[in-house]
């Protein structure tokens, strides 16, 4: 007699992220073991916990692997030009201060070509959230050296190893005036989600660096193993140090990575300073911006 077994499968009605993702654009373009998907998952989770209603949350991306986030997220989402996500977001936010504007882009976009916009938005305390996925290379174009590549690391345009000193992004963000600065790796999913929630619930320029594996380019070239090996590396080498001095967390090639929430402070935002100052100077002549005019 033939044995028959019935396997009871749980009825799958919906992917847990379906309400947040543009399912008609899945599958995405990211490589297996890429960390961007993890960062996006954390973001989707964080969105469930924020105060702003989702129709008022916008995502702006620049160009590159992480730049593709805007295309997968089911919010008003803008895939702008290389390096200009932050000024685009600046215009969007000022045109409609009701919006919660999140810039989700890569290190090349934010710290390389868009570095000038980054420091000025932080200086002004523009009320936006900047989520920067740092995979240490320009990945979309084939893994070229970046402003964040650790010294000695091999990339397709530093084939003998990188000799340029990289930016330490938390230090840069803090010194320019960001009110919230954190760094996590793609391993720290729950902590990253919590940080994203905090950043989105905070007023002012909030910055989170997300260290992500790029196993296709960065780790293959540097013989760092598979995606799993990288997760293990993050596990063994991340040091959680909330409130750490951002001057002491530069990333060195395959050394300890300081993670945590480093800065959480208050400063008037660009728009608050604009309104308060001009009201003080112009008195009843001052007319505050009344939201979208068209």
């Amino acid at each position, binding site marked *: 007699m033939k044995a028959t077994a019935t396997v009871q499968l749980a009825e799958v009605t919906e992917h847990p992220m379906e309400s947040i993702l*543009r399912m*008609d*654009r899945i599958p995405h373009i990211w490589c297996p073991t890429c960390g961007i998907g993890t960062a996006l998952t954390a973001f989707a989770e964080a969105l469930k916990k924020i105060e702003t209603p989702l*129709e*008022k949350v*916008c995502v*702006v991306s620049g160009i590159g692997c992480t730049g593709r986030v*805007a*295309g997968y997220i*089911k*919010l*008003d*989402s*803008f*895939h*702008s*030009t290389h*390096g*200009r996500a*932050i*000024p*685009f*977001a*600046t*215009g*969007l*936010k*000022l*045109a*409609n201060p*009701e*919006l919660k504007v999140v810039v989700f882009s890569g290190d090349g976009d934010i710290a390389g070509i868009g570095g*000038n*916009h980054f420091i*000025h938005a932080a200086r002004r305390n523009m009320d936006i959230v900047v989520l920067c996925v740092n995979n240490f290379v320009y990945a979309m174009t084939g893994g070229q050296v970046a402003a964040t590549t650790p010294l000695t690391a091999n990339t397709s345009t530093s084939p003998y190893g990188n000799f340029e000193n990289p930016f330490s992004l938390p230090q840069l963000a803090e010194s320019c005036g960001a009110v919230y600065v954190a760094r996590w790796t793609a391993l720290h999913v729950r902590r990253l989600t919590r940080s994203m929630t905090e950043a989105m619930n905070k007023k002012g320029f909030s910055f989170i660096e997300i260290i992500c594996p790029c196993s296709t380019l960065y780790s293959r070239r540097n013989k760092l193993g598979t995606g799993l090996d990288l997760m293990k590396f993050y596990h063994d080498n991340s040091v959680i140090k909330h409130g750490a001095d951002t001057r002491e967390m530069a990333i060195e090639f395959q050394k300890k990575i300081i993670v945590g929430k480093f800065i959480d402070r208050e400063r008037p935002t*660009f*728009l608050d300073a*604009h309104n308060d100052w*001009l009201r003080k100077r*112009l008195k009843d*002549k*001052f*007319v*505050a*911006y*009344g*939201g*979208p*005019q*068209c």
Partner: protein
Amino acid sequence: MKADPKGVLTGEHYLDGDHACAEGAIAAGCRFLAGYPITPSTEMAERVSERFPQVGGIFIQMEDEMGSMAAVVGAAWGGAKAMTVTSGPGFSLMMENIGLAAMLETPCVVVNVQRGGPSTGLPTLPGQADMMQARWGSHGDYEIIAVSPNSPQECFEMVIKAANLSEKYRVPVMVMTDECVGHMTEKVIIPKADQIELYPRRYTKLPPEEYLPFKAGKDLVPEMVKAGDGYKIHVTGLTHDEKGYPVMSWEVQEKLVRRLVEKIRLHADELEDIEETQMEDAEVVIFSYGISSRVCIPALQKARKEGLKVGLLRPIVCWPFPEKKIKELSRKVKAFVVVEMNYGQLFYEVERCVAGKTKTLLVPHGGGWVHDPEDIYNAIKEAVK
């Protein structure tokens, strides 16, 4: 829709072109301007920074012109009527996001107070050598609209016109003025708000489930929404379909780029805006715009006194180029004399339209000062030979 009277300084004023541009922007309902200081355009930003806090506007001085233009595009999607102002070197930097604005079909206005170039060139002196850049400056195929005022009064009017056209066609519109017009002070009459007609943004009435952000009707211009309206749109500078989603195929490229180009080309006739001076019996047509067109008047008068049948054709809308008009005239007149402050830009468009049917002469000028009317007069004499 009429202008908001709160922003309109109705009355007679004595203003330079840059300040008149600022008043035009305010009258047009612009309440967001992102800019970066650059001679000879700065006075517009200065006036805006003084006036905006009194009319509910936000002026932000960005870190550079790439940021300024990106902020303008972002602000337009946030629901603001957004503008920027610059001159040659800044215009070059804006090209990246002017391309984005064209691709995202974003209504916005760029005022370019032209100075002598190339590079840093002549910051405090005029030029008209950015005319081709206005049309072709960003990479890829697209169309824009450009207007060219020749007086402070027209600066006021043309900024309003530019804003209206940008809303109607959903394109960046360039106001191509120059240092002379920008720094020239003349009487500017600002009408009452109810005499200023504004073109409202073309928002959709469709519900989110039926709306496709880049699906256009007969006039090829899609309806818009703004961020925060609950439509959860995706907008990308990548080649995209009607839904706004990126598609890397020649078919979608063909459909999109063809529409971006044709939405302006198909409306070239209705966009035509030309001022004609003594053109009724003209056998020689001077073709000139901006400050150069004003220098043509004494040359025209001198030639007329000598019985030469000369007229002046001044395109107020330079892009799209008034092709039909030039083609028509080329069958009737003896010659075109093109007067512009460059070594041939719109001249080549005139030549293209004339296609050898009649004589074409260029009176070039490298910029830095206006033409000597005598040179224009001599070209007229040459033309009638």
